[in-house]
């Protein structure tokens, strides 16, 4: 009984973990899609003037 419960818990954990992974993947995909749609033709940033930013 106890073993069955543990196995079930493990299965649920694995499924939930994969679910979150899928969610993050879809989020990334969605953002990339959105970025593509809002493509302003700007493929590089306008300027790159690195400023001192401690701790980064």
């Amino acid at each position, binding site marked *: 009984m106890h073993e069955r419960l543990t196995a079930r818990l493990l299965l649920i954990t694995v499924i939930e973990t994969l679910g*979150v992974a899928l969610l993050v*993947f879809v989020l990334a*995909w969605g953002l990339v899609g*959105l970025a593509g749609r809002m493509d302003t033709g*700007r493929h590089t940033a306008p300027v*790159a003037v690195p400023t001192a*930013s401690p*701790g*980064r």
Partner: protein
Amino acid sequence: MKETMAQPSATAVASQAGPGDRLASLDALRGFDMFWIIGGDGLFHALAEYVGWGPLRYFSDIQLEHVAWKGFHAEDLIFPMFLFLSGVTLPLTLSRRLDRGEPKGRLYVRVIRRAVLLVLLGMVYNGLLHLKWGNEYLNFRQFRFASVLGLIGLSYLLASLVVLNTQVRGRVIWMVGILLGYWAASQWIAVPPAGGGPAQAGVITPEGFFTGYIDRHLLPGRTYQLTYDPEGLFLPVAGAALALMGSLCGTWLMGQGRSGITKVGGLAMGGVCALVLARLVQAAGFPIIKCCWSSSFVLFAGGWAMLLLALFYLVVDVWQRRGWALPFTVIGTNTILIYMGSGIIDFDHITQRLLGGINGYLDTVTLLQVNGQGIGQVLNAASFLLVEVLFLYFLYRKKVFLRV
């Protein structure tokens, strides 16, 4: 960083762990982390220059500089460490308030308010109040919206939402899920590289990676680097995984009925496991890269953070050796204040006014010269730190803490 900065984080632990058992190690470690930002690195650069000793030079020239893209140096641990520590305080603050019966709605407002404040503070740090960016007034295209504080605030917010709604198992699932999902995204989402060309997946370069693509198109204003921002739009998701790792450590430290040594051992074992896992993720095709907070980077930085926390907890809280840590504690209880304040208060000028004379004189003393190199720079760097720490000590004694 918020709760991070402030005294209450440690006080909160005290009430969990029982009176007289305050978790001073958190403040000390946070201060140790901030020490390198506010002048510790400058002191080591000056020392390495003065002494010219190989290992010190290596530490100063290599380890105290960021890697350009792939890899990991000590300097790359400073920023994630703050995020990790803000995660450690989560169970000590949010879970405790929940247990006390504070309504969840109010806690949501609290964490959202903090995140917004940190994003705003980050923008102020980037020069928002100058109103002049790229030599033109109100030219928002030249203003950088992303910031270190902003990334900390948003990662903290996401992690808080998870902590408010889950127990340990749920947090582990979210952490592992985020790291796995990010790894999958890094391998399979194809984007066109900066400068044009066909879309390709699995190109983890500054020009070809998808987080940079998102920044180039969706992040308003300018990015820190030409093709991406190291505090970009997608990165709070990865940062949340690190804060969640911290929150698990916080729960472990709060645990009743565990000896201090057991807690230290658990943290150290967790740290080693995270380092090993980081190498596995790296082998699976997602290298350790701070600029995009890759899954392997989050694990690697988290691993080192856990090992350092284990060390500080052992020395400061288990062995109760606290005197040496006082300078770090006064920094660690007011980190936001000194981070923001260093751009407002001219500590360099104060140092020169007070100690510039004697340092200049000692620089000329032959007895103190090594290979013809005077000791002035080392003394200047040390004096600078001293002035900052004395200023913070004064605030510490007066119990003035900037809380966000």
